[in-house]
């Protein structure tokens, strides 16, 4: 079975991309979930879609844009969207969550306009919404690898600060830690990871890769470190299993990945209930 995967370059690309995002999406997801910002991933994925659509639309007018992977348009819009979310959070201090539906609806609105202006890419659209096993080019893979490496390194070096600010932001600030800057760096990483995950899981399901493995992990883990490790394992199993089954059953990988994550989540909930029952 793995021979087929190694035979075709497009499958290798998707497979390796999947393995990278299976690590970094749940890694960032742990910090997103404990800070109660789960919905931010949805907002950023929709704004990424408008960036992808804008690049594809621009490509129909100018050969310059035709040479640029829509991945970069998605990243650019996603990062800009993340910066706007941060700005809106400070504007609406007492309604911080308001920033998420604002950016999400702007993302969908722009996306719909760009998509209807260029009806030439309707086939691709399905892939962008629900993921595709054949959509990653070799150059995309290289960019995704570099971003993955960057994310892991930054999280390792900012781990102390990210943990403290997530656990008790006031204490972090009282210790003189520049919470705003750390947070800004983090949110930009989230924006980048969402943009690169879209090709595999799709706009509509990308946030699940940041939340479902973490939700399952929290049922099992006894420490923050374990929460991260289990999340990555669950994320990796979901992505790899999802890609393989999507290929053989000819399904959209977004759906299979999410379904495997959901099965893992259900198993962990039942298992932790059993543990509690036995402990009585």
């Amino acid at each position, binding site marked *: 079975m793995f021979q087929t995967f190694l035979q075709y370059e497009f499958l290798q690309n998707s497979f390796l991309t999947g393995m990278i995002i299976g690590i970094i999406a749940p890694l960032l997801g742990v910090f997103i979930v*404990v800070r109660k910002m789960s919905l931010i991933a949805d907002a950023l994925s929709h704004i990424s879609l408008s960036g992808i659509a804008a690049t594809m639309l621009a490509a129909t007018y100018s050969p310059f844009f035709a040479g640029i992977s829509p991945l970069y348009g998605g990243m650019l819009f996603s990062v800009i969207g993340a910066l706007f979310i941060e700005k809106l959070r400070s504007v609406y201090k007492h309604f911080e969550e308001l920033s998420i539906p604002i950016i999400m609806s702007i993302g969908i609105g722009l996306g719909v306009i760009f998509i209807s202006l260029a009806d030439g890419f309707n086939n691709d659209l399905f892939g962008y919404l629900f993921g595709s096993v054949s959509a990653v080019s070799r150059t995309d893979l290289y960019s995704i690898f570099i971003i993955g490496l960057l994310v892991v390194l930054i999280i390792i070096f900012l781990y*102390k600060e990210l943990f*403290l600010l997530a656990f008790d932001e*006031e*204490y972090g600030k*009282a210790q003189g830690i520049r919470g705003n800057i750390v947070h800004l760096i983090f949110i930009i990483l989230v924006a980048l990871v969402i943009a690169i995950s879209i090709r595999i899981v799709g706009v509509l399901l990308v946030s699940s890769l940041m939340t479902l493995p973490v939700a399952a992990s929290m049922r099992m883990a006894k420490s923050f470190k374990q929460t991260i490790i289990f999340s990555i394992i669950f994320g990796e199993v979901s992505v790899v299993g999802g890609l393989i089954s999507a290929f053989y059953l000819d399904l959209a990988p977004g759906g299979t990945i999410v379904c495997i994550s959901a099965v893992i989540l259900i198993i962990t909930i039942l298992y932790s209930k059993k543990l509690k029952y036995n402990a009585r």
Partner: protein
Amino acid sequence: MENKAPIIEINNLSYRYASEDVLKDLNLTVHKGDFLAILGPNGSGKSTLIKLLLQLLKNQKGEIFIYGTPIEKFYAWEKIGFVPQKANAFNTGFPATVYEVVRSGLTKKTGLFHFYPRNVKEKVIDVLRAVEMEDLINRNIGELSGGQQQRVFIARALISDPEIILLDEPTVGIDSKRVASFINLLERLNKEKNITLIMVTHDLSAVINQVTHIAWLNRSLQFHGSVKEFKNINKVNAQSFYQTDLESVSNVQVNGGKH
């Protein structure tokens, strides 16, 4: 007492929210080794004062000096520990162990882009021993009782070897039987490790036998002095003073906070 070095000096500090003065012309000096209880009714500016001392709020008017340095230019925050009010400190579902929480107190001291020191585990065990919590090092923080969580937060403050610890109503939400042993723990840290403690509290009777100094705050400073001075100006029972005899104290103005 008064010949010790001042480590915190507050001069003419005022702070307003909207158009209301929460603190007005506050002068207060804290000396090394003091165990100061800041008392006062709700809305008297106690928590605002703590937030200003931690620079979670920025000064609007007046000055604060820490070790003689204007607070805006003070960067050695690892010397100042903080124990928050338990009720709003953290999300109890947070998946972290006591070890991880206590270790996070070293974040500032370790420095940006640096990793925790090699002996971090021993350091965590040391401070947990000081608060009699070393057996619970691997427990999830959310599983502990309120009093135990508060001890963990003290350990987190202790791990960076602070010279001052600020506590904002640390006994709120702890059952009354455990408050006494908690205050005794603070007294021990104050006496044995010579850590200066500044504690905001509602409950004078719980702390009067352990603290060395009392500041009575009601937007402006009504009284500041040693416990002995406090008892002298207030022949009646201290607790009843706290509840009813506000007027007599505001007329006394012993020391005015300046030494």
